[in-house]
């Protein structure tokens, strides 16, 4: 399908889409469009967060929505992350569908009391009497000296908690469809978006649609090794797969799209075929999403691996500021290529 493809920039997209009548927009435009449509259709939807009404509009994802829908429905908020989260929860349990936006994932740790102690537990501990249809969007920064406190990925803070869902869309199509799915899921959903995906382009239908939560996707088929690429790393994995293909190694690239729940069926099917697995993640290694994938393979089908798993993660330090250090810090296409080769050599 055209919208399952990953394109990094406009040129790449236009080259591939030549002659097609399908519309292409960027990842950030896809989020803006999904949000705008829901505000239009559903009075219970509102957007809240620090700077959602500023000129940039959270890197373009809420741009000018306050002009269209008013400041009551696109609410700028004080710097009080835990409090805003509680307010969004209170609104959610009393009939609203808040979309809470944080410009950085790094601000989520300030909200953990309300998310972990409250939102995640309310449906269960109150005997199923009320659900918390809360969506929290947060963005992973990278580059421009984002450094230690403006660059974290942190899905594992939430994947450990029953009651939460964690989505990490990698394409414009998924960004739009998963945001809509999240708002109408009825549970607290954390969406972690990578800033470097914001200008990526892809086919996005103008109509409303949802992408099912918990369904991953095969971005590229291959028989020799499986690479699970999470969020931005799905794109790096595609580049690695293309390079490896020139050397005769055919890599299957899986984008899980949602990391809680994880589409383990899809991953296991692929590894059954290839026998080799590389996991490329935007965060650190210990107790990561990758760790969960490996553990689940061990639990469910431990005989399918022909070689040890290789994981591509951030090194075990906080993120440095200096561009020179940053270059050494972030793994990318080359690391994935080496990782795949390592699984094949064994």
């Amino acid at each position, binding site marked *: 399908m055209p919208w399952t493809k990953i394109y990094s920039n406009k040129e790449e997209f236009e080259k591939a889409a030549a002659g097609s009548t399908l519309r292409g927009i960027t990842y950030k435009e896809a989020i803006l469009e999904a949000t705008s449509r829901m505000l239009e*259709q*559903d009075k219970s939807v*509102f957007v809240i967060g620090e700077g959602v009404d500023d000129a940039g509009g959270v890197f373009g994802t809420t741009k000018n929505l306050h002009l269209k829908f008013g400041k*009551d*429905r696109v*609410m700028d*908020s*004080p710097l*009080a992350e*835990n*409090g*805003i*989260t*509680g*307010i*969004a*929860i*209170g*609104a*959610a*349990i*009393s*009939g*609203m*569908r808040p979309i809470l936006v944080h410009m950085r994932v790094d601000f989520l740790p300030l909200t953990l*009391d*309300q998310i972990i*102690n*409250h939102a995640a*537990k*309310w*449906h*269960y*501990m*109150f*005997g*199923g*009497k*009320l*659900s*918390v*249809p809360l969506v929290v969007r947060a963005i992973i920064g990278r580059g421009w000296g984002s450094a230690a406190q403006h660059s974290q990925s942190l899905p594992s803070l939430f994947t450990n908690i*029953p*009651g939460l*869902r964690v989505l990490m869309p990698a394409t414009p199509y998924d960004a739009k469809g998963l945001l809509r799915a999240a708002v*109408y*899921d*009825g*549970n607290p959903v954390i969406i972690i978006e990578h800033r470097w995906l914001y200008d990526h382009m892809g086919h996005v239908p103008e109509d*409303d*649609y*949802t992408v099912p939560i918990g369904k991953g996707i095969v971005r590229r088929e291959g028989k020799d090794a499986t690479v699970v690429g999470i969020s931005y790393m799905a794109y790096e994995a595609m580049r690695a797969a293309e390079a490896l293909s020139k050397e005769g190694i055919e890599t299957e690239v899986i984008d899980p799209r949602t990391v809680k729940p994880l589409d383990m069926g899809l991953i296991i099917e692929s590894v059954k075929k290839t026998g080799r697995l590389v996991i490329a993640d935007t965060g650190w290694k210990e107790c990561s999403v990758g760790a969960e994938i490996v553990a689940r393979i061990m639990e469910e089908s431990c005989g399918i691996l022909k070689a040890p798993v290789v994981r591509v993660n951030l090194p075990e330090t906080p993120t440095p500021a200096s561009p020179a250090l940053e270059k050494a810090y972030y793994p990318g296409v080359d690391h994935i290529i080496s990782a795949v080769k390592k699984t094949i050599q064994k």
Partner: protein
Amino acid sequence: MDILEFYKKALTIRFFEEKVDWLFSRGLLGGTTHLCIGQEATAVGVVGALRQDDYIVSTHRGHGHLIAKGADITKIFSELLGKREGYCKGRGGTQHLCVMELNFLGTNGITGGGLPIAAGAALSIKLSGEDRIAVCFFGEGASNQGTFHESLNMASIWNLPILFVCENNMYAMSTRFSDISKFDDVALRAASFGIPSVIIDGMDAGRVFENTKKIAEKIRQGGGPALIEAKTYRFCGHSKSDARLYRTREEEAAWKQKDPLPKMELKLLEVISQGEIEVIKRSIKASVDDAYEVAVAGEDPGVEEALEGAYAQREDLLPQGNI
């Protein structure tokens, strides 16, 4: 204010809590619990001044708030006993009691956790253009939490229809408020957010009612948030294992002189006789005992129920005809 109704509610709370205390001492109830014996006047006075459709967000010491809101004490007992018939099917227990049909948005095991949630319910009311209000109970201990300051600030800047009710019983567990705050009054803090506040005698149900009524109506008419600080005292310990070594027996005796129940009885004697009061007492005591007996004879949830309900299935949420 119907003094007889208030008295009956307050008495129900007292007998309920005493029964819970007794059950604990006999080992018939597990876990922990936080009793509000002594604080009944704030529960009946505040809740009695509200409408049924107003939201209430409560605290860890919330049985009184819930009973005042009209909950069925059998179902509260059932929840405390972990029975299927409990308000939360036995999954919540004392600190997580929620009754949506009464607009009671939960007791809460995290001190200060309910403050922003109540503000969120108030935001919902405002965005929907309704004339309900949200009421948030909290203790003086919670006023040192960030959520207190964050919530009051947001309630103020957005002019939310919310009444913050501080039940200042002087002790956060064993910690005296004067040891953790420069000032004795939580109400002072409201001023820094431009929120009007009053300090009242929380042992006097009539005074609590009159103040709440007046303030709640003002909020209902768009007057914005307000804070009531009710000075009160829990006659029992913080929780079941508290020997109350942090306060003197003299202080306790002085507060017991202000017990809200005898005060209500004095008022009642203007309209009914002592004999009639005794009949009421016996009847409510019996109804609490009966409620417990019904609850304890209830069913334990099936083991499979422990694993149900972490996620809501809300297919109903999706707008029609858009996909």
